[in-house]
């Protein structure tokens, strides 16, 4: 068989390394966010300095997560980047289109509960997952 020359640092291994790095940053951000959200009440009895430190840590880890995501996107090949960007665009659109009316409905007490940001995050996660799955299957 006519063998094609394999690059030493191939696409799949680079993407695998980037996905692992991205998962680690996501996990670290989740942990930092949990610390910031529950720490003041459960760990340091609302001491302001510790709360500010937790907020600073959360933002710093969040910046690391954004950079890891940016690097991941930059390393993707053009089709996979297109699928990711399409999913991100749809997610952003849905977040804005659904988020504003949701907030207005809360302000005018149309809904019987508080329009918490967590609902928006759940909607964004589900939208991204569905649109990403659709995009991946479309080009399979």
């Amino acid at each position, binding site marked *: 068989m006519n063998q094609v020359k394999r690059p030493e640092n191939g*696409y799949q291994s680079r993407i695998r390394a980037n996905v692992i790095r991205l998962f680690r940053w996501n996990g670290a951000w989740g942990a930092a966010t949990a610390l910031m959200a529950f720490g003041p009440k459960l760990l340091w009895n609302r001491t302001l300095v510790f709360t500010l430190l937790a907020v600073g840590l959360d933002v710093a880890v969040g910046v690391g997560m954004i950079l890891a995501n940016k690097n991941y996107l930059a390393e993707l090949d053009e*089709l996979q980047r297109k699928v990711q960007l399409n999913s991100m665009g749809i997610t952003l659109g849905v977040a804005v289109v659904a988020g504003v009316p949701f907030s207005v409905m809360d302000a005018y007490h149309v809904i019987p509960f508080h329009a918490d940001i967590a609902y928006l995050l759940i909607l964004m996660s589900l939208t991204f997952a569905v649109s990403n799955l659709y995009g991946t299957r479309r080009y399979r």
Partner: protein
Amino acid sequence: MKNRLKVLRAERDWTQAQLADALDVSRQTVNAIETGKFDPSLPLAFRAARLFRMRIEEIFHDPTPDKDGGNLATEIKKDTDV
């Protein structure tokens, strides 16, 4: 855009994964290009041309005729050949 990637790959007895490695893309991308679901960028088309040691237009071609019913690339080639 139509292409001869699948034929060229088969002639060399390469798998989609091997071609993907050589082009530094995913196997899914090679499959999407071969099946005509995705058109590659110019840099990727150049990489494919270099890999197969062919000109881009020998691998990829646009079957859409121009307004006069001819193929624009063919017309340009005719002009340059004169």
